[in-house]
């Protein structure tokens, strides 16, 4: 293949692929979410109240089975995810949430890793800058 045609391929193939992806994602509606997928999502984000660190989705206890059935009922009754989670918090307290709310102490859970990220980025750029300073001295 001549060079010119080759470089055209490098432009056309990604352009077509990007256009196709954008066009599809733009127009495509994902449709209403399947209730069973929603129920599973809720069950993985709620702790089984009587188990050792298992979610409702993972536990084989009778209580977890009942609570999973409860989630199905609430979804069938048209409740939103937020409403169902509120029901569980009202019944079992906040410790039922496997995803602690980002308020109060919950801020710490996110702030500390972000702090570590910032420190790491600073350290890497520090490595680079120290080098620059040194070469300037050398020069």
């Amino acid at each position, binding site marked *: 293949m001549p060079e010119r045609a080759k470089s055209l391929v*490098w432009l056309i*193939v*990604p352009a*077509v*692929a*990007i256009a*196709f*992806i954008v066009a*599809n*994602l733009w127009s*495509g509606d*994902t449709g209403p979410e399947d209730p*069973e*997928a929603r129920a*599973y999502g809720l069950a*993985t*984000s709620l*702790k089984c109240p009587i*188990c*050792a*660190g*298992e*979610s409702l*989705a*993972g*536990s*084989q206890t009778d209580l977890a*089975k009942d609570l999973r059935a409860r989630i199905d009922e609430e979804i069938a009754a048209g409740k939103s995810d937020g409403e169902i989670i509120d029901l569980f918090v009202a019944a079992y*307290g*906040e*410790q*039922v*949430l*496997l*995803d*602690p709310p980002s308020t109060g*102490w919950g801020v*710490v*859970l996110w702030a*500390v*890793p972000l702090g*570590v*990220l910032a420190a*790491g*980025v600073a350290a*890497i750029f520090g*490595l*680079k800058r*120290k*080098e620059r300073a040194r070469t300037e001295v050398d020069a």
Partner: protein
Amino acid sequence: MIAVAGYTSILVALVSAAALAVQGWRVSHTPDPDPARLKIPTIGLAVGGIGAFTLLEIGILTHDFTIAYVAKNTALATPFIFLLAAGWAALAGSVVLWGLMLAVFTWLVWRTVRRGDGLGVLALGVMGAVAVFWFGLMATAANPFEVCTSVAGSFCAETSWSPLAAAVAPADGVGPNPLLANHILMAVHPPLLYVGYVGFTVPFAFAIAALTRSELGSVWLYRTHRWSLVAWIFLTAGILLGGWWSYEVLGWGGYWAWDPVENAALLPWVTATAFIHSAVVQQRRSMLQAWNFTLVIITFALTIFGTFLTRSGVIASVHAFSLSAVGPTLLAFLAVVVFGSFGLFAVRASAVASSPRMDSLVSREGFILLNNLLMTLFGFTILFGTLYPLLVEAFTGREVAVGRPFFDRISVPLAFLLLLALGFGATAPWRVATGRVLWERTRVGLNVGLVTAALALAAGVRSISLLGIIGLAGFVIGNIVAFFVHQSGRAHRGGKPWIAALGSTIRSDKGYWGGQIAHLGMALAAVAIGTTSVLAVRTEVPLAVGESVVVEGYCIQYLEPFSRTEPERNVQGARVAILDRTCSTTRAVLEPRLHEYPKFGQVITTPRVWTTWVDDVYLSIAAIDAEGMRLKVLVFPLQWLLWFAGSVIVAGGLLALGRKPGRRSSASKRGDRIEHADA
């Protein structure tokens, strides 16, 4: 008798370990350190370690119920393979396995140490000190040879630590924890994980010896490179088989639950992965010396931490199978390791201060640094998320839980960034990558990535995150394969046929290409994790005998129930046929079941899986009675790809082990010379 011999073995190993620690220290300070002077303690440690393990297994296989551990964890009816596995399935036994591996590793390291090698001699001393802890634990808090002194029913009511005490035996033992005796993988997964854990003792010991002796160059790193890689390979395989076990046994249809103990196993893997990358940067560019000491100490500490978390019961978890006084002992040892190592490191810090020769952030080392940043952040966040409930409870008394939603939200963006860094970094040149070179080496991958994402979209994938993962995996794979073909092209033009050219490319640098194969495996694993979590279908259907239902194009038909009695358990199951979507041709018959263990009052759901090239169909009984059953039918697209990808990662690691040992030695001398010149 066995108890007496076993306990004696532990004492032999303990005394030998202490002698090794003291002698290692003393001999390393002589002008001409001679490892021959460590021969007796090293062999004593190996003999004691092998002896303790062998005697425990003999006790188990001969049903010597005077030994409390045997009476508690095995029974006459326990099948052979689970008898064997009982040797490490419970706390005291797992410490024995740990001790065995450490003793054997110490002996293997001893064989590599030559006369005049003070670093190696002191490293053996450090391994001796670590062994003192483990065998000390066996001699005291986790004694596997405690004897039964009084019996109540089939239980040991009282035990004595002294193997000489008058022992009595219950008529039969209790038997293994049902969860641990339900699948063959349980016999394999823990030993693999333990080889991985114990393996990191070697680089740790060399790092501590290097810090102590102020031999701060890269020698310790070259000498332990292969050990770290072996440990990493075993850890990878162990985690993978753990996931597979969870998938095959736990019945909820997943392989990873972000359970604290799973996190504890993943943590050292994450830091070890960062370490094997940053070690390459130090070997090639003499950078990151302080950072490598830090990573190796953290990795070793995390292996202890993982054991602590599994065995102390501080954090409630399905895997925390045992509660005991071992917890505080492990915690104390962890504190000694962390404070001792970092204390020593702090004393030497000014001398370690690495000379950073970072020419450009856009270079192989720049991308590896990014990998290290992301891996460290990942590890830290997992650790923090796992300990967060403890912290909050300690400060406020409130109970909170952190689980899958949090860890998923952290790991998905990090996985994206890691794949991106990998796609650029794998083929980027060292020092400086100019825009032109970077473009030449990544344009194929960019195209492959975009096209695969477009194809996945055309095939009906609508999840943006899954499309992103598929596109990035295509990017990584495309780049690596294109670079491989490009490099081999030179040899091919030189007259070699393609096959020979590809082979000679790999042979020319097994370390690099082994790494790239592992990278291909990581990209494939990312795709499999994506498809099995985003595209999974989960339903629960009521079925009467003879009835059928169609799920995702699979016709599921309930043929008949069955029940039978097996050793230790009652089996209640259902024969279920999987047919094509028109319900006319049978493609497979599965027997999902419930295993009831009457002695433990426990029922375990045992799923059955049918694997095709497209999907796994996963059947698990939710409830069953005379009228019918409720069957969970789960469909996981491309589940097999995850296990395959894991094998590719392990294969890549094994290939990298074959790296010619001398190949980098000239670089090593060069690196050290530069470093001395700087100092």
